[in-house]
C-alpha cells in the first residue's frame, strides 16, 4: 500500500509542471489520411524526446484532438485544448479551412502555434499578424512554383501546351486559382479548361467529358484523397487521352498505388521513403521499428520534425515563455528528412519553414511512388502517355 502511494506521489510530481503540447489533427473526415500519418509522426517524435530526457527535465505530454476535417468541429476542440487542457503550445493543423476557422481564437488567446499543414494563402492572410505562428509546410504558391517548374520542363521536352484544371471549391483548391491560371498563361501554356468540383462527391463524369472536348496535354487537379479514385476511374472510362494526369492532394487514399487506375498519375510530395538524405533514412528505420511498416505520407515525417524542433526550442529557451521559445525556434537550423530546416519570412508571415525547393514530383509506377523530377532525385523516367 505504501509502495503504491509512493509511486503515485512520484508520478504526480514528475507530471507536475510538464510541458503540454496540444495537437489538433483531422483524425477523421476528408483529411484523415494526412491526420493519421501526422499522428504517427508525433508519437514517434514523442518517444524519442522522452527517451532522451523529455523537455525541461520532465516527460513531454501530448494532447491529441480530432478536428474531423471540419471547421465547425475544429474551433471548440482548439478552444478546449487552450482553455480547459491548458496546453502550453499548439501543434498540428492540416486543413486550410480548419486553420482559418481557428485563427480568431488563436489570436484572442495569443496561442503559440507550430503548424504543419494549411497551405492556402487565406491561412497566411489570417495569421499574418500573429507573432507566434510558425508554418512548416510550404504555402500554396511555393507548391505551385515547384509545379510550374516541372510543367515548364514538360513544355520543353514533351511539347506540352494545353492544361485542363479541375479544382475543389474549398479554400485549398479555390484560393489561388486565378493566380494559377494567370501564371500558366504567363509561362506560355493554354489553359483550355478551368472547372470546380465538390470534394468527396465522386461525380466527375461531366468534368472529364469537358476535358475530353478540350483536348489537354496535362490534366491538373487540386483536391483531396477522396477524389483520386473516382477521377482516375472516370478518366479511364471516358478514355481521356492526356500526356500526364497530375494531382496535388495532401495525401492519397490507402492502397491507391496498388490500383491499376493509379498507374502513371503524378503528384507532389515533400518526401518519399526512398529519399536519400541521412535524416530520411534514420526516420524510415525508426518508423519501421515502432510501427512495423513504413508510410509514404509526408505528413508523418513533417509532424516528426515539427515536434522535435519545438521540443528543442523549448529546451533551448529554458522555459515556456512564448517569446523566448519563438526566438529559439526562429533560430532553428537542423537537418531533416526534407533537407535543412530554417525559418525565414514568406510573403506575409514571419516564420516560414520549407519552400518550393523542398518538393519532389513522383509518378505511380508499379505499385509505388517513384520520384521522377527534379532529375537529380529521379529514379525512373517519367511516363508520358501522349
Amino acid at each position: 500500500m505504501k509502495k503504491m502511494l509512493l509511486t503515485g506521489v512520484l508520478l504526480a510530481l514528475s507530471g507536475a509542471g510538464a510541458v503540454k503540447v496540444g495537437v489538433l489533427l483531422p483524425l477523421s473526415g476528408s483529411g484523415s489520411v494526412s491526420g493519421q500519418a501526422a499522428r504517427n509522426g508525433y508519437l514517434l517524435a514523442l518517444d524519442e524526446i522522452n527517451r532522451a530526457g523529455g523537455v525541461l527535465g520532465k516527460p513531454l505530454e501530448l494532447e491529441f484532438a480530432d478536428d474531423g476535417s471540419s471547421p465547425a468541429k475544429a474551433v471548440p476542440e482548439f478552444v478546449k485544448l487552450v482553455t480547459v487542457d491548458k496546453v502550453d503550445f499548439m501543434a498540428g493543423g492540416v486543413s486550410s479551412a480548419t486553420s482559418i476557422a481557428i485563427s480568431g481564437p488563436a489570436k484572442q488567446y495569443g496561442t503559440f502555434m507550430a503548424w504543419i499543414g494549411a497551405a492556402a494563402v487565406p491561412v497566411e492572410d489570417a495569421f499574418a499578424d500573429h507573432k507566434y505562428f510558425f508554418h512548416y509546410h510550404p504555402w500554396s504558391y511555393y507548391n505551385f512554383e515547384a509545379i510550374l517548374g516541372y510543367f515548364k520542363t514538360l513544355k520543353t521536352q514533351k511539347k506540352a501546351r494545353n492544361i485542363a484544371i479541375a479544382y475543389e471549391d474549398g479554400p485549398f483548391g479555390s484560393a489561388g486559382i486565378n493566380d494559377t491560371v494567370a501564371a500558366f498563361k504567363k509561362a506560355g501554356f493554354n489553359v483550355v479548361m478551368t472547372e470546380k468540383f465538390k470534394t468527396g462527391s465522386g461525380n466527375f463524369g461531366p468534368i472529364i467529358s469537358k476535358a475530353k472536348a478540350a483536348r489537354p496535354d496535362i490534366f491538373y487537379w487540386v483536391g483531396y484523397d477522396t477524389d483520386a479514385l473516382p477521377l482516375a476511374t472516370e478518366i479511364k472510362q471516358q478514355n481521356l487521352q492526356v500526356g500526364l494526369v497530375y494531382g496535388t492532394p495532401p495525401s492519397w487514399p490507402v492502397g491507391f498505388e496498388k490500383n491499376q487506375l493509379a498507374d502513371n498519375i503524378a503528384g507532389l510530395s515533400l518526401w518519399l521513403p526512398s529519399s536519400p538524405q541521412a535524416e530520411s533514412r534514420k526516420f524510415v528505420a525508426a518508423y519501421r521499428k515502432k510501427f512495423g511498416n513504413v508510410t509514404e505520407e509526408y505528413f508523418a515525417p513533417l509532424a516528426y520534425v515539427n515536434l522535435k524542433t519545438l521540443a528543442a526550442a523549448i529546451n533551448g529557451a529554458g522555459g515556456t515563455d512564448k517569446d523566448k521559445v519563438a526566438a529559439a525556434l526562429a533560430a532553428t537550423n537542423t537537418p531533416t528528412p526534407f533537407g535543412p530546416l530554417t525559418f525565414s519570412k514568406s510573403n506575409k508571415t514571419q516564420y516560414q519553414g520549407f519552400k518550393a525547393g523542398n518538393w519532389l514530383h513522383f509518378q505511380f509506377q508499379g505499385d509505388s511512388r517513384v520520384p521522377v523530377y527534379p532529375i537529380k532525385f529521379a529514379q525512373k523516367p517519367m511516363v508520358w502517355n501522349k
Partner: protein
Amino acid sequence: MDLFFQTLLNGLLQSGIYALVASGLALAVGVVGIVNFAHGEFLMLGAFLTWGLSTYLGVDPLVSLPLAAVAVFAVGALTYRVSIRHVLLAPELNQMLLTFGLGILLQNLALMLLGGNTRTVTTGYQGSSISLGELSVGGPKLIAFGFAAAILAGLYAVLYRTTLGRQMRAVAQNRRGSQLIGIDVDRVYLIAFGVSCGLAAVAGVLVAVLLFASPTVGLVFALKAFAIIVMAGLGNLTGVLWASVVLGVSEALVQTYVPGGGGWSDAVFFLLIFATLVFRSFRGSR
C-alpha cells in the same frame, strides 16, 4: 453535340446509384413510416464489407454483393428489433432523433474500429467502358443502373404480386386495420426495414467500387436520396427511378453548362426539393 449527349449519359448513369440508395429509403418511409436518417450509414456498412472481403479474402465486389445485402439485412432487422419498433407510435421528432443518433453511432463505431482513412477497392472492371461512337458508357455505373432498374422492378413485383407485398401495402395504408385482419404487422415492418437496409448495402458495394469506403461516405448519398423521395412523393417506389434520373441529369447539365457548375451541382438537390414542395403546395391549394 457529343458533349451534350455524353452529359445526358453521365447523368443517366449517375442516377443508377442514386436510385439504388433512394429505393431502400423509400421502402422504409413508405412501409414502416419512418424517416431513416441512418440510411447512409447502412450504405457505409456495405461499402466497408466489400472493402474488407476484397482486401483480406480477395472476394470480387460483385460476388460480395449478395453477402453484403444479407449481412446488412440482418443488421437492419436487429436494429429494428432493438430500437425502431419501440418508437413507431412515438412522435415523429422522437423517431428522427433515434435514427439520427443511430447514424452517429454507426459512423463513430466505424471510425473507432477502422479509422478515418479512405479505403479503395481494386477490380479488373473498375475502369471498363463501352464505346458508342464518340460516347463512352462506364462499366460499373452501367452495372449500378442495371441493378437499380432490376431491384426497383423486383420490389414492384413483390409489392404487387406477392402475399408479403400485399401485406406491406396493407400495413402501409392502415396499421390497425391490418392487425385486425390477422397480419403480423411487426414481422412485416421487420422485413421491410431489413430489406431497406440491405438495399442500402447493395448501393454501398457499388459505391466502394466507384468511389471509396470511409465512415462518412454515406452522407452524400443519403442527402441525395432524401431529395429523390421528396420528388417522388414520400413512399412512392415507382417514382424513385424517374426522380433519380431528374436529379442525375440536372446535376450533369449544371456541371457541364453552368459556369462554375461543379461548385453548384450540390445545390441542385436543394433546388429540386424546393421546387417540388412549392409545386405540390400550389397544386394542393387549387
